[in-house]
C-alpha cells in the first residue's frame, strides 16, 4: 500500500493541530491508565466525553464503514491519529472492549442488524461494552467456563457469575462466553458466545475493590437472566472459536483498527525523568551508578520489546520460530511494566511512603499505583506462569506441565 507522502504529511499536520487545540487539560485528579482502572464516575464521565469529542472530530472508527457510523477512510489515517494520541499520552478511549473486541467481532461475524444496532454506539461511547470471559474459580482456564446458558422456550436463561468485568457498572452490553451444553464431548464444545444487554433483570455487576484501593472491575452475577436467542453470535457450541477469534482481533491486524489507544503504560523515559527529579544520597538519583545501570537495562528491555515487531516483519529473521514473537509480547511487556514500576517505587526513597491522595506523593502517587495495577496484565489474560508454559510448550515443543 503506497501512501502519497504529501497527503500523509498534510494529514499528520492536521491531526497534530487538532490535538494541539483539543487535548484535554489536566482534570485535577489522577486519571486511570487503562479501562480496567476506571474507578469513579468522575473519571468515567471525563473519559466518555473525551472519546465522544475524538469521534465527533472524525478521528475514531475512521476505517470502519460509514453506513454503521464509521468514516470509510483509509486505515493509515487512523493509525496516524492513534500514534499521535499514544505519543502524547492523551487519555485512552474508554470504550476499549467495544472498540477492540466487540466491534471487530460484530463487523466480522455479525448480522446486518447487529452491525446497525451496535457499531455507532461503540464509537460514540454511548454504548459501553464489557466482557464476560473469566470466572471466579477458573482464572487462567478460560475453556472451563461454567456460567450456564440454558434454553428455556425461546430464550436462554443465564446463571452463574463472571469476574473482572471492567466498566461493568457503566456497560450497556457484554460479550459473554457461556456454557450451553453441560454434556459436550469436551469442555470447549459446550461453549457459546453471546452479545447480551446488561441492564436487564437478573444481571447484577458488583464493583470489586482493587488492591490499589480503587475500583475498576466488577463481579457480575447472573440469576435467571433471560436473553433472546438473537444474542447468540456464531453457532451454538461454537463459542470457543468465537472467543479465540475475538482475542485474535485484539492482537492481529484488526487490533487498533477502530483507533484510539487503550492504555497509557509507563515508558522508561518517564522513569528517567523521575530519577532526575528525586535524590539519592543527596544527589540526583540519575547520578547513582546503580540507578544508571538499572535504567540502562530498562531502556534495553523497552527497546527490545519495540523492535520485536519490527523484526517480525522480516520473515527470514523469525522463520526458525515464527510463533515466538507473537506469543511472548504479553509476557515480556507485562513483566517489564511490573519490574519498572517496582523500581520506580525504590527511586522515590522516603517519599514512597505516600500514596495516591497525599499532597506530597510524587507524581500524585502514580508510580505505586502503576506498580499495583501492573499485576492486571501479569495475571489477567493468562498469568505470567501460564505464558511461560505456552512458550515452553508451543514454541519450544516441551511436554505439558
Amino acid at each position: 500500500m503506497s501512501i502519497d507522502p504529501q497527503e500523509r504529511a498534510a494529514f499528520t499536520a492536521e491531526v497534530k493541530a487538532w490535538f494541539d487545540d483539543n487535548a484535554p487539560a489536566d482534570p485535577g485528579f489522577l486519571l486511570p491508565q487503562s479501562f480496567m482502572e476506571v474507578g469513579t464516575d468522575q473519571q468515567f464521565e471525563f473519559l466518555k466525553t473525551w472519546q465522544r469529542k475524538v469521534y465527533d472530530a472524525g478521528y475514531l472508527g475512521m476505517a470502519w464503514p460509514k453506513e454503521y457510523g464509521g468514516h470509510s477512510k483509509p486505515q493509515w489515517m487512523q493509525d496516524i491519529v492513534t500514534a499521535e494520541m499514544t505519543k502524547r499520552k492523551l487519555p485512552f478511549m474508554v470504550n476499549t472492549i467495544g472498540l477492540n473486541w466487540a466491534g471487530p467481532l460484530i463487523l466480522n461475524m455479525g448480522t446486518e442488524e447487529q452491525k446497525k444496532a451496535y457499531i455507532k454506539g461503540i464509537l460514540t461511547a454511548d454504548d459501553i461494552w464489557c466482557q464476560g470471559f473469566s470466572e471466579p474459580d477458573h482464572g487462567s482456564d478460560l475453556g472451563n467456563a461454567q456460567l450456564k446458558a440454558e434454553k428455556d422456550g425461546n430464550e436462554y436463561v443465564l446463571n452463574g457469575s463472571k469476574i473482572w468485568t471492567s466498566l461493568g457498572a457503566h456497560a450497556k452490553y457484554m460479550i459473554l462466553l457461556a456454557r450451553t451444553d453441560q454434556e459436550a464431548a469436551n469442555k470447549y464444545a459446550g461453549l457459546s458466545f453471546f452479545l447480551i444487554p446488561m441492564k436487564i433483570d437478573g444481571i447484577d455487576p458488583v464493583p470489586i475493590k482493587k488492591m490499589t484501593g480503587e475500583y475498576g472491575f466488577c463481579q457480575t452475577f447472573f440469576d435467571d437472566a433471560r436473553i433472546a436467542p438473537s444474542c447468540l453470535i456464531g453457532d451454538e457450541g461454537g463459542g470457543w472459536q468465537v472467543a479465540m477469534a475475538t482475542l485474535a482481533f485484539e492482537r492481529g491486524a484488526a487490533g487498533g483498527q477502530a483507533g484510539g489507544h487503550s492504555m497509557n503504560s509507563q515508558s522508561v523515559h518517564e522513569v528517567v525523568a523521575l530519577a532526575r527529579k528525586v535524590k539519592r544520597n543527596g544527589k540526583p538519583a540519575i547520578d547513582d551508578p546503580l540507578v544508571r545501570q538499572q535504567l540502562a537495562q530498562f531502556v534495553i528491555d523497552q527497546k527490545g520489546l519495540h523492535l520485536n515487531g519490527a523484526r517480525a516483519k522480516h520473515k527470514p529473521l523469525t522463520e526458525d520460530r515464527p510463533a515466538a514473537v507473537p506469543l511472548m509480547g504479553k509476557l515480556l511487556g507485562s513483566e517489564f511494566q511490573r519490574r519498572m514500576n517496582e523500581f520506580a517505587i525504590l527511586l522515590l526513597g522516603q517519599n514512597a511512603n505516600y500514596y495516591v491522595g497525599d499532597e506530597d506523593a510524587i507524581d500524585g502517587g502514580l508510580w505505586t499505583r502503576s506498580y499495583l495495577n501492573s499485576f492486571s496484565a501479569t495475571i489477567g489474560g493468562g498469568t505470567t506462569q501460564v505464558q511461560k508454559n505456552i512458550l515452553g510448550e508451543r514454541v519450544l515443543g516441551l511436554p505439558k506441565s
Partner: protein
Amino acid sequence: MLMETLANRNIAFSDEQAMMLDAAKRFVADKSPTDKVRALIEEEAGFDSAVWAECAALGWTGMALEEAYGGSGLGFGALVPVVEQMGRGLMATPLVPTVLAGAVIQLAGTDAQKTPYLPKIAEGGVATLALGERDGGWGLADCAASVTRDGDTVKLSGAKVLVEHANIADVIVVSVTLDGKTALVLVEGGELGDLTRETVIDETRRVFRFSLDGISVPADRLLDPAKTADALRFIELASCMLCAADALGGADSCLAVIVEYLNTRKQFGKLIGAYQALKHPAAEILTGIEQGRSLLYHAATLFDEDWATPATEIAVRMAKAAADDVAIFAGDRAIQFHGGFGFTYECDAQLYRRRSIWNGAHFGDAAHQKEKLADLLF
C-alpha cells in the same frame, strides 16, 4: 573489618527472651487476626487502645528502659522478637515510635527530661519521633526545621512529616538545626498546632505532618548536645533493626498466606502448589526469611552487647537489607500467585506488599544498606 565480620557467629537468646517471644506470638495471634487489622484500617485511631494498654502491661514499652524509670532493663534487642511478631500480625500499635523515643531520651536526655517522660512511657504513654522532612532523604542530619534561642526558650520553625501517632503522643522528639548543627528537642503533644493526617501506602499506620512555626518550648527541652550525634546514630540503627524485625515477621505471614492458597486453589485440575513455578519461589521466600532471621537475631545480639560498635552497625544493616529484599519479594509474589484474587483489596497479599514498601522506604532500602555495608567492610 571483613574478616571479623565473617568470623562473628554470635547469636544469644536467653530463656527470658524465649518466654517473651512465646508470649508475643500468642498475644499477637489473639489480638490481631487479619479481620481485626482490616477493621482498624477503617477506624480513625488506627489501633485498639485496650490492646495497647495490654502491651504496656506486658512490659513491652519498658523493655529498653532502665528500672529506675519503671522499665525492665532487658535491653533494646529484646524488642526484636516482639516487633517481629507484631509484623507477623500486621499489628497496629504505637510501640515502635514510643520505644524509640524512650530510648533516645534515655540515651541523650538530661535527668530533668528523663524523670517526667520515661516512667510515662513505661506505663504506656505514647511518644514518637519527628524526623522526616518534605524534601528529606534518609539522612537524619541537615534538617531544614530549626530552632533559635530566645532567652530561656527556643523557637521552632519549619515542618515535619511522616510522624507516627503525632496526634496522641505525650512527647515528640523533634530533629532540628540549631546553630548549624543537628539537635533534638522535646515537644509535648499539647504544644503542637494543626496536624494533617497523611495518606500513606501502609494503611495500618497513622502518620501526620505538621508545622513547627510558632511553637516555643523551654530551652531545657533540648537533649544533651554532646550526645546528639550518638542519639541520631542510635535512632538510625535501632529503627533499621526494628524495621527488619517487622519486615521479616510480615514476610513470614505473607508466606503463610501464599502456602495456604497454594494448598487450596486448583487450576487445570491440580492444586497450584504442585506447580514448580509457584512452589520454588515459595521455597526461595522461605530461605530468604530463614537467612533474614539468622541475621536479625545476630544483630539483636550484638546490639545488646554494644549498639555503638561498627560490628553492630554491620549486623543491623545486613539484617535490614535481607529483610527488605525478602519482604518485597514475598509481597510481590503473593499478589501474583493469588491470580485474580490477588488483584483485589480483599486479598491479604496487598497488606503485606504495602507494608514492605513502608519498611523499605524507612531508614534506607536494601541497596542503600549494601552501599553503607560496602563502606564499612571493604
